[in-house]
């Protein structure tokens, strides 16, 4: 099967903040399954894309949700003119043909769905397709990476210990102010001083997590705001549109965030 659509032709921009690249390479060398933990919009998905490019492997990404079933991962029978034929799901494609399979927000999937990854993530490295009566042995290049955000989910949604213990984990957080400003300046193509101001706003918003804000303003939101400013929109309006209005429905928190935006922009 041709996985060229899943390969990266150009290098995705990623600015390392620690040893995560070396750590990932070691994990990949031994094909250890990985959990990427961290708040939303801090660069988990970009990191996987960058690593897939760096290792020269295709990347198959799947966003998990509550209604997802095991068949959505492993595949199902379809009917055509000649009868039934089996259609591999994204996880099976990755295992069969040697891609990195990235399950984004894995805790959103129900626990009875996530157990299908178990035989793939231990020394067996096999994926039984019980409906089809086949056992797929994982390609040597195959690796499973999942991500989740431990911050806002209630304890009702978390990984089962039996799933969790199959993974090594890399923890992500928003980069330090200088690095984050560099990222925002690069991604939004704006002046470093403006990027630093945007990062300053985000830092303040993250301090409001104790006061009921589920998540602080993410690096991704800063890039959005930066892009709007680059387009010529007034800075305050761009920030309100891309950041403060988007992040919360609570009028008091929104007001406080707008005041912070106004205070920092001047």
């Amino acid at each position, binding site marked *: 099967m041709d996985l060229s659509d899943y390969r990266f032709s150009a290098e995705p921009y990623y600015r390392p903040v620690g040893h995560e690249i070396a750590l990932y390479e070691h994990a990949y060398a031994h094909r250890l399954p990985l959990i990427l933990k961290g708040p939303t919009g801090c660069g988990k998905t970009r990191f996987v894309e960058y690593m897939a490019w760096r290792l020269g492997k295709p990347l198959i990404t799947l966003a998990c949700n509550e209604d997802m079933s095991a068949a959505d991962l492993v595949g199902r029978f379809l*009917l055509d003119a000649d009868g039934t034929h089996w259609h591999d799901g994204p996880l099976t494609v990755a295992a069969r043909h040697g891609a990195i399979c990235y399950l984004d927000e894995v805790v959103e999937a129900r626990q009875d769905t996530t157990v299908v990854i178990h035989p793939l993530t231990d020394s067996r490295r096999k994926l039984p397709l019980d409906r089809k009566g086949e056992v797929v042995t994982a390609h040597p290049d195959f690796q499973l990476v999942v991500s989740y955000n431990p911050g806002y989910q209630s304890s009702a949604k978390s990984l089962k210990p039996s799933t969790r213990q199959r993974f090594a984990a890399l923890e992500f957080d928003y980069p330090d102010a200088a690095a984050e400003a560099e990222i925002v300046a690069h991604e939004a193509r704006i002046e470093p001083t403006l990027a630093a101001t945007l990062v300053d706003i985000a830092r303040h918003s993250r301090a409001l997590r104790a006061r009921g804000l589920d998540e602080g303003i993410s690096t991704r939101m800063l890039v959005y705001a930066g892009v709007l400013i680059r387009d010529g929109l007034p800075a305050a309006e761009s920030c309100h549109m891309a950041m403060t209005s988007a992040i919360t429905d609570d*009028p*008091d928190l929104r007001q*406080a*965030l707008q005041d912070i935006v106004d205070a920092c922009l001047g």
Partner: protein
Amino acid sequence: MPASAEPLPPTHTASRSLEALGHLIDALSGRRMNLQWLTADKPGTEHTRPILRTDKLLLPVNTDDELRLAAIAHAAAHLLYSPAAQAVGKLKPMGIAMASTIEDARVERLLIARYPGLRAPLLRQARLACLQPQGPEGSFPDLIARLHLALLDPSHQDDGYWVSKGRGLFEAQVARLNDPATFRGVASVLANDLGQMRVRMNLQGYAVPYAHGDDNSFLWLFEQTGEQATTSVDTPSASAGSRSTQTAPPQEIILARYPYPEWDYRLERQRERWSTVVERGDPSPPGPPAATGLRTGHARQRVTQLDHRVRLRRQWEGEDIDLDAATELMIDRRIGVPPEPRVHRRSGRSPRRRSLLLLLDLSTSANDVIDADGTTVLDLEREAAIALQANAIENGDRVAVHGFSSNTREQVDYLRLSEFGMDDPGRLEQTLRGVHARHSTRMGAAIRHAVTCMRDERDGSRHLVLLSDGEASDIDVFDDAYLREDAAAAVREARKAGIHVFCLALDSQAGDALCRVFGHGNYRTVLRPAALPRALTQVHEQLGRR
């Protein structure tokens, strides 16, 4: 607190709420600040200036929105840049006022450098103070207001000799803005000049001339600290003298006692085994079941969730092929009939399984009579509980009804009126008839015990719905914030345990406190008590759809 007599701050849309201002000062100062309105103890003694402490800011209630924003900025400036509680030493009142003014200007300049957007609101207040002087030209308040403006706005013109000198001395040191000691020197020169100019300071009536400036008690350590404290800080030790002598009715048998911790927001830690929940038995003896007024109602749209036990056949798409449909399709094709393309099977949805605990506030306030017929709040709570149970059973939810009241931390009475799985409306109605309202509302302990009661409800989502007047209170606690913060902590713990807590409150005034305790979107106030049963039913239907 005589807060009820005070008009609440205007609530037009442009005005920032106390909550929003609280978020702002936290974000600016990087501290967890407690923000409160400053109300008069008696008419004519209104505070006109904010009061800043290391952990709280009291804002005068009768202020406009712009002034509040400037006051928040000013307080944040002190919190960020001012050394707190400096020794007064040999400084006289005028020296203290002078040093405070220079310090105010110094920290505001630093704040403006850090947050350029705060320059406009601060400058506006500084200008207002000069336009509306507190005294005649050349008086102490006039000079202070003008100096403050001159130091804040280098482009401002002021020809006064003393103001110009002050500006000159200040600007000469501006490179060392981060060093407060340098500016103490500037202040002492200027205070000395005032003495020589024979400018007098009115010791009794002096207030900082710019209204956004606090009373500067944050900066200084006076001999008698705490004298100006406006909110008394009390420990919640049981005051035995004021203990109610009301005794429990004999039919209430104590079943068990459970110790629970309480969160003390001033210590920022839990007091272990601080409150005791006393679980009591069935308050009414079993009798003949009353006729149920159960209303069956029309079919409702139920809350559903994916259920693998429900298999839907002949679907457009799905996980599996529906063998019967596939066979028919092949047959149709062979005999040349247009085939039916719906050949998949997939899981269907079934009603969501939920457990719901309704916790009734059985404090004295439930005895309030709300109409001419003598209907009490408690009557409505009963009616609402019965309607909710019927509605829950109809939706396939598991439901329990409990009640609580408290009489100091040593006696938080807790009644299990109806248990999960006991879905007999007649029985609940009868039990509820034997319930009386009394004592106070120690919400935190009751929430913690309700969470314990829901421990075994593991199937599906769990919701705790509190029916209350919205304010936590008890006779051994005098600090309004204490039980409120404890209740907020209890709600956070419940959330961690995977239980969603919602409050339906009867007091529309309690909005701020409710938001603080239950969080945005997790409470609802009912304006008319009569609407309570209906509101509770609506809340129940919305739970879990969020």
